[in-house]
């Protein structure tokens, strides 16, 4: 369906996207995850036709979209700041796309109440959009994008302006709506939780390139790079140097035994991910407790040097402890 091929975009002399390629298949939700300023929103604007790339192509079913202006692409867009038309009421906002496509009034009216029902906003037809709460506005924006039955839905940090509790409930609602409508969708966010909840596939955007592409479980299990592991908040990143090929690696926490030394040679540096929740493995790390914080049903214990683990019993600050951890090799 949608194919993005080697897209390059420069902003005021700084390369923002340096050759991004990916595809979105039918009935698949793809999440573009990246830090702010990584160019992920720009990528959406390029796909929407609201910006033009310096080079590269964007294709829909094999056809280059370059000559097709935004209003004939049939791609729905949902913005972080909603962009609801302040001079129109809820139903007029939702009907806007139908009006542009010259739907007849009766079917348009039906469609409006149908999508408002879908986003749980039935009965709000004649409210002013400026009187709605943030969550309600975002649901109207979603209904507006859904109404004209777009070929593709795009979300630009749609929940970024909302508070945490609302965000979590809306993510679940959004997930169900996307499953129900079976529309291909691109969802841009910098929030890992949102991404893992909503995506069939996650694309990590970093340094103008897609550094990881896969289903959430796979990406979370095998982040690949140290940047990805840190960005996803998977654990502490520990740098080390291989002492011998048998698996001795020297780190700030002393010499650790890493099976096959991540396949590296003697003298190479390695990046290790220390997963905080997995304390069942053979690697033992010793250190002095710097901080203890109670979280939900366990303690987050941080050692001097920054490494942290989750354990059930709280040690005292300053105490020398030994913890067993799982250590994974990173690229």
């Amino acid at each position, binding site marked *: 369906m949608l194919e993005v091929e080697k897209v390059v975009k420069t902003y005021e002399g700084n390369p923002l996207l340096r050759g991004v390629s990916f595809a979105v298949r039918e009935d698949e939700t793809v999440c573009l995850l990246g830090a702010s300023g990584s160019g992920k929103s720009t990528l959406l604007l390029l796909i929407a036709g609201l910006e033009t790339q310096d080079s590269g192509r964007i294709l829909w079913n094999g056809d280059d979209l370059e000559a097709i202006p935004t*209003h004939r692409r049939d791609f729905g867009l949902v913005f972080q700041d909603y962009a*609801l038309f302040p*001079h129109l009421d809820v139903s007029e906002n939702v009907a806007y796309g139908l009006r542009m496509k010259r739907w007849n009034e009766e079917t348009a009216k039906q469609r409006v109440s149908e999508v408002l029902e879908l986003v749980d906003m039935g009965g709000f037809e004649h409210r002013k959009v400026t009187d709605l709460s943030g969550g309600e506005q975002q649901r109207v924006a979603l209904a507006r994008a859904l109404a004209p039955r777009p070929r593709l839905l795009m979300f630009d940090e749609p929940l970024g302006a909302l508070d945490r509790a609302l965000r979590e409930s809306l993510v679940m609602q959004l997930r169900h709506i996307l499953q129900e409508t079976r529309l291909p969708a691109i969802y841009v966010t910098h929030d890992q939780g949102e991404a893992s909840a909503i995506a069939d596939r996650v694309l990590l955007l970093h340094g103008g390139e897609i550094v990881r592409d896969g289903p959430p479980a796979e990406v979370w299990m095998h982040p690949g790079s140290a940047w990805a592991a840190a960005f996803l908040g998977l654990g502490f990143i520990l740098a080390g140097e291989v002492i011998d090929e048998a698996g001795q690696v020297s780190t700030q926490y002393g010499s650790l035994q890493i099976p096959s030394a991540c396949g590296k040679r003697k003298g190479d540096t390695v990046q290790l991910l220390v997963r905080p929740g997995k304390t069942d493995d053979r690697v033992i790390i010793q250190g002095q407790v710097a901080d203890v914080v109670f979280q939900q049903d366990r303690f987050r214990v941080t050692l001097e040097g920054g490494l942290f683990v989750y354990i059930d019993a709280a040690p005292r600050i300053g105490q020398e402890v030994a913890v067993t951890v799982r250590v994974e090799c990173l690229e």
Partner: protein
Amino acid sequence: MLDDERAGTRPAPTADVRGGRRSGQAAWLSRVGLWALPLAFLAVFFFLPFGRILAYSFSPEAFRGESLQVAAQTLLFTVYQAFLSTVLTLLAGVPLAYLMARFRFRGKILLRALTLVPFMLPTVVVAAGFNALLGPRGLVNVLLERLLGLSNPPIVFVGTLGAILLAHVFYNTAIVIRIVGNALSSLDPKLEQAAQSLGANRARLWTTLYLPLLRPALLAASVLVFLFDFTSFGVILLLGGPAFATLEVQIYEQSLYYLNLPVAALLAIIQLACTLAFSIVYSKMIARNVVRTAPRSAESNLREPRTTGQKLFVGGMVALIIVLFILPMIALPVRSIARLDAERGQRGGFQSGLTTDYYSELFVNRRNSITYVPPFDAALNSLAYAGATVVLSLAMGIPAAWALSKPGRIERVLDPVLILPLGASAVTLGLGFIATFGRWLLYPWFVPLAHTLVALPFVIRALQPAMATIPVRLRQAAASLGASPFEAWQTVDWPILRRATLAAAVFAFTISLGEFGATALVSRPDYPTIPIAIYRFLSQPGALNYGQAMAMATLLMLIATAGILLIEKLRLPGAGEF
């Protein structure tokens, strides 16, 4: 103070959140297209005349000793009266701004609207209003004469510096109330609470919190007030009398009475240089102090006056508003229906009472002379000119404001180009027309052209903020929903801009109707406008002439006030002013 910063929830501006500006030549061409009409208009009707003035001002006659002496004296007096007026305006305006920004009291909305009316009121109306109150035939003098049995008016007001200063305060206090008041009401009340919790009393609040934070607003207001006082024309001519001449009045007299265009041109160049400098300072200031959209509800800063001190303050300020702003505006209509003069030949017999004579007289052609034009015809001229001004200034203003609201490189260069006509006074514009178009001025349509030049900056300022408040996102959303660029404009931009456009139209209409400076120089004697007719009546002797001036000024005041209140109602909340 930008919206984004206050919202707080949005991530820092990054390359992610840029507008959808299409790159390349098409965009550049459309920009040039937007500018073509307004620039062509300004080139012919502003920059060409400006060039002629410049040429005249470098002629040898302009640099003779006596010319330079006139120029120096006039400049000195202009600065002197503008400085005094500005100080007095600040003294009246800052407490009133505080009153409006901080207190809730009965009748406030009405009072606030009334303080805003004078700023836009035609000068002839203001002059006639003060004349009706304090002039030799004014209400106060006639009453005192009668009570005390005097034969001469006891209060000499018209023809004094005091009259000029008072009228300037009346005019420009609204600016201080607006700018300083807005800044005050958008101050976070938590700052005040924090300062108080740290031990600041009322006085220390002013010295440590308000004044430092309001300094940009105070400076901006002062510069703007000074600019308006500096270029004041009608007030000086009508209330100051022959003893006082500012640059404006001197330009007018030199070009119309002494027919000395070189000296007039020299004065115009001096004036333009000064006002341009002030304008640049002013736009630099507001650029630093800009509030683009409605600030967080100013309601939270309002409170009822509770302590005795607060009640006294509110009472005193309301009294000030009534005396300063409302009395002259009431005196005018009252005087226009009051017969107070001793009729000639009836010794000692006062014939007093209410009369509609002055109004019915407006429709009669008294003197069967060729040069006399009945007031009714002047009104028709004014309406025709105002209609043409609306059409012209919208045709120029809409594309210019549109381009300015999405500034690119061209706009950064062109913004000062638009400021220049704003800096040029109406009289200078008139002089430029005389110097350039000479005999062509026999065609009456030069008057609406001059009015368009006067109104254009106001029209642009009325439109531009509304255009700038429409986020790029809305247009992007419309496009993603299938709206072509034209459909997006039609269904999103235009409905939002309709109000602002109507406000701009009313602005242009009201300005044209009351315009005096340029009209005084450009209009033909047999095609006078309402303000010109009022000026003629005021400068002729006799109770009937005086009464007719009052009657016409009252009508003009009512129309202008209606226009001003309409603009107020149409204004987007928080959208830019001045």
